[in-house]
């Protein structure tokens, strides 16, 4: 438990702030890094060269977040291409044993992705995210979240050639992700975000499996767990979703114009959980008006106290440009300061 301090703050062991500000995970890669990643894939530069540029870009985003004034930072995922593929054999990563990158599969329109394949029993390959987390945390006094992809999403977005059932694969994957959680905690990481964007793929058939997998990943580990669940039929899974064994669930509120508030009003939200509120749409170039964000915050504050709310963009910002991302974060932080003043918290 976080110790009570007189000044409210977000520390590396917990946040007592009203309306703690943070981000969801990814930022856009600068052009030099995109170029370097492609050169690395072609064997033109080595891992050390790429590593240098990934760290340079990470530092850039840490400084942007400090300058804008976020309370809890993300490292920006400069080393990752895709949130599942990074753990499955993407160039530059340390893949889970038993996984590899497969051929191209179409997502929609003219968009394709390399879908990973589970081809053998999964085994932990040693730390996959710890070095980068340690580097990012070393750059700043503000807490930096550890970022992982949850077991259900890892399996759901891969082909499975190795396990008899999806359940077997998901629970074995949870064992692997738990090992990485343990390594992050050992390195001193307190906030660990485990993203599950695929969690509502089969709301009736196996939502319980996703919950069971989260238990298997986090139970008994002393850290503060968050999960990000974006888009999809949240309303179909809401009453089960809020049972996930994490301290915080964050949802894309802005994208649905805060319609999720109706779910909270109708079904409640657990007393022991914080709520992450997405307040800026990440799919548009349009920069929201501060008043617009403030309005969303006021509506949310009617249902939950400021101390239990974390404020963030709807999703990762990697599809937005550097300028757009910075502007969206700034609007968010400006609105939070204004509301903190309004409620006498600042």
């Amino acid at each position, binding site marked *: 438990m976080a110790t009570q301090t007189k000044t409210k703050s977000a520390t590396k062991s917990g946040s007592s702030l009203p309306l703690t500000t943070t981000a969801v995970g990814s930022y856009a890669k600068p052009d030099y890094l995109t170029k370097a990643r492609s050169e690395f894939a072609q064997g033109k530069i080595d891992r050390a060269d790429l590593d240098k540029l990934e760290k340079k870009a990470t530092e850039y985003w840490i400084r942007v977040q400090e300058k804008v004034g976020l309370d809890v930072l993300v490292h920006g995922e400069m080393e990752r291409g895709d949130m599942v593929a990074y753990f499955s054999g993407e160039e530059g990563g340390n893949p889970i044993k038993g996984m590899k990158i*497969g*051929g*191209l*599969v*179409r*997502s*929609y*329109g*003219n968009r*394709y992705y390399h*879908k990973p*394949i589970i081809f053998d029993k999964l085994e932990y390959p040693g730390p996959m995210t710890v070095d980068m987390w340690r580097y990012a945390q070393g750059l700043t006094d503000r807490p930096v979240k550890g970022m992982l992809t949850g077991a259900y999403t890892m399996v*759901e*977005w891969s*082909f*499975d*050639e190795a396990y008899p059932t999806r359940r077997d694969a998901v629970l074995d994957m949870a064992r692997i992700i738990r090992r990485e959680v343990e390594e992050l905690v050992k390195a001193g990481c307190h906030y660990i975000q485990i993203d599950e964007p*695929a969690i509502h*793929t*089969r709301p009736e*058939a196996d939502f319980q499996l996703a919950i069971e997998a989260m238990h298997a990943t986090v139970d008994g580990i002393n850290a503060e767990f968050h999960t990000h669940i974006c888009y*999809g039929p949240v309303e179909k899974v809401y009453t089960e979703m809020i049972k996930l064994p994490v301290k915080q669930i964050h949802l894309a509120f802005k994208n649905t114009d805060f319609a999720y508030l109706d779910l909270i009003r109708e079904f409640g939200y657990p007393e022991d959980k914080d709520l992450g509120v997405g307040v800026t749409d990440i799919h548009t170039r349009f920069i929201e008006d501060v008043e617009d964000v403030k309005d969303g915050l006021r509506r949310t504050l009617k249902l939950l106290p400021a101390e239990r709310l974390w404020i963030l963009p709807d999703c990762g910002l990697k599809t937005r440009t550097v300028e757009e991302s910075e502007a969206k974060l700034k609007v968010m932080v400006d609105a939070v300061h204004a509301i903190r003043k309004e409620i006498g918290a600042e």
Partner: protein
Amino acid sequence: MQTTVVGNYPKIPNRPRPARLRNAINKRDRGELTDAELAQVKDEVTVEAIAEQIEAGIDVITDGQLRWDDDQTYVARNFKGIEIGALQRYLDTNTYFREPEVTGAISFVGPTLAPDWEFAQKNSTKPIKAIVPGPYTLAALSLDKHYNNREKLALAYAGALRQEVDALVAAGCKHIQVNDPVIVFNKEDYAFFHAAIVKLLDGVSGAETGVYTWFSDCAGILPQMQDLPADVIGLDFAAGPANWDALEAVSFTKRLGLGVVDGRNTRLETAADVAEAIKRASALVPSERLYVNPSCGLEYVPRETASEKLKVLAQGARQAEGVPA
């Protein structure tokens, strides 16, 4: 017994083969290629997909549906009354489609499928089966701003699609398949699903007609499906193993589309697996009434896997027939 496919084929191969269609669409979007040049590339890659299916040993193939962005919009976008809406997840896949928005009364304007079929058949030594999107599935996956009633919408789609079917028959197409999978998830709507298929296919002559489902089983509706005005019923035995029991419980009078090779996973079946499933099905439906095919379209797996799966399918069918591979 014949081998066939359920619908789509992956649009692009992997390296070292060039992703011609993907590159051409990108170039057109950047203004470096005209629409006519893109249409030419679409023709060429369609011919390649036809050749690959034939080479794998499949008897009745499709054009691969390489021109289709998705099953919901390719035909419907040319109907009056339809606009193209937001991206939606397709059932429990990680594939997305554009939601058709029904903004007015639906009507047929001119054939989309018949010209595609004529082109494909001209470039194939094997019969080309035309794929028609199912009226029920279209209704279930549309945003209805006009009829405000799924039954009315399904019947309206069926009316417009019937003209696609009639144009196919007039062009000489001998195999017409309606892909209407979503009924397996909404069996309570069966009565008007049935009525829509009747409107779409009743009285069609000169072509073999089929209705295919996937991603789950037809338990509970398979008996009524025997009364559909279709020659073939396609069932997914990979995602819907309960189809075995359903098949056993019914007096199956149609030809069966035996979906035994999993179209959604790269795990490769063996020819023996396929032969075993054929043997099991033959005990319930005489083998001369069997079509052996993947469980669904093959676009969920990479192109090379799709090609391997079709080869295994063809080998398994030969094995079941006792023909030396």
